[in-house]
């Protein structure tokens, strides 16, 4: 398990690759974390059932920003149905960070937003 503040995470936070706005997004979701008031927007461009572009924007801690960046890297290029298979547990395993319960919410903020964005609402909460 990676430390919450491993070099890899901090690098992702400082230099995200999937941060930004998609102007002509086909799907946009806004999620907030009541613990801290942090918020995140997820933008997806879905074409013929495939996620051709994915970005996130917003304000959050290193954990939430880095995990959003990693998550979107995972699903970009995937089919929507395929992306739905990114379960909570799968995603956390891929992240591989050891998280306390409070910070788990930070790590999963983007995942909740993504699930809603790809119409997997019942999984999203």
């Amino acid at each position: 398990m990676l430390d919450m503040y491993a070099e890899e995470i901090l690098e992702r936070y400082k230099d995200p690759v999937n941060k930004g706005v998609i102007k002509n997004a086909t799907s946009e979701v806004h999620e907030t974390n009541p613990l801290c008031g942090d918020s995140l927007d997820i933008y997806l461009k879905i074409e013929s059932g495939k996620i051709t572009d994915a970005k996130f924007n917003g304000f959050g801690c290193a954990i939430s920003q880095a995990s959003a960046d990693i998550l979107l890297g995972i699903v970009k290029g995937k089919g929507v149905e395929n992306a739905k298979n990114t379960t909570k547990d799968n995603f956390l395993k891929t992240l591989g960070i050891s998280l306390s319960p409070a910070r788990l919410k930070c790590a999963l903020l983007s995942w909740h937003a993504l699930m809603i964005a790809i119409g997997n609402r019942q999984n999203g909460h």
Partner: protein
Amino acid sequence: MDVEKIKADFPILKRKINGKKLVYLDSAATSQKPVQVISAIKEYYENRNANVSRSVHKLGEEATEAYENARKTVAKLINANSEKEIIFVRNATEGINLVAYSYFLPVAQAGGKIISTVMEHHSNIVPWQFINSMGIDLKFVGVTKDFGLDMENLNKIISAGTKLVTITHASNVLGTINDINQVSKIAHDNGSLFMVDAAQSVPHMPVDVQKLDCDFLVFSGHKMLGPTGIGVLYAKEEHLENMKPFNYGGDMIKEVGLEKTAFNDVPWKFEAGTPNIAGAIGLKAAVDYLNRIGFNSIRKHETKLTKYSLGEFSKLDNVETYGPSDATKRGCVISFNIKNVHPHDAASLLDRQGIAIRSGHACAQPLMEWLGAKAVARASGYIYNDKNDIDALVGGIEKVKRMFGV
């Protein structure tokens, strides 16, 4: 069940009252606390104390975990579907008020009917008088000669417009254990919600909200070995989702703007401000303690004790008891009156012998009126009581009778 061993867990039972060893027979008012509960509170303050829900530091996380674990333990105790259905309140009374304010106040002007009973504790009467003053009818089911609920009466009173039937599971005066399932069925068949005041049942017997099929249920921690200041409201999740919040403020919100506020998810939507964290943790320790003994064993022990008590009381001349004669149909609560002796005098004189019982209206004046008694003396037993305690009580009553020449 080894009562001697249990007694040893309760420091207060070593105390002398007026030179006599304490015989505590007032558990229906509040129970005593075992060292396991006292220590759990102490341990929390000494090692993990922090505010919950809002911190990312270790103490805060530990406190939050302990608080939410207590919720899980309580959910399991009464077999709730999920811990989301458990709201921590101050006491049973606040639980009932929460339902009154959050569910019924907003719909009171639309009319309808709420049905309570003559057997209730004031806590299950007075909140409904308040809701009644806002526009809903309020009716009370009577009591039968054998101290049960008058089901015929209930069937007569209930109607399509009935919004709530609310009754006590076990009477704090008569001991009567009501047939919850029958009442639940009548309520639901008439499209009414159904609420149970379980303040006198959850401490003493297995209670399963799904089997009882109730919409709301309340009880108090302090009557089941837990600390003061913590109680529980159980409600079906769908009701909680639809109910208005009760107290407003920190922790019960998701996002606050000056104009608009989004409320938190259940159960936190109903827990405004810093909760009684140590209270919840103490309650968990109490439930753990009771679970170790086992609620079936507790019920068995108390039934035996009740049977013995009723037998001993029946030998006393000029002493009247109130409540069902069949010990299997009642809790270990013996209300009585000595002819020509006021219950206060009886309680005071028993206290001189170290025996603590309650006296007065027992927060059930309408029932007192029905009994034709202005007041009663009440002895109530729990896991730490045995036949010796009952013998001391009966001996004490005989002494009172001699003093008053009865």
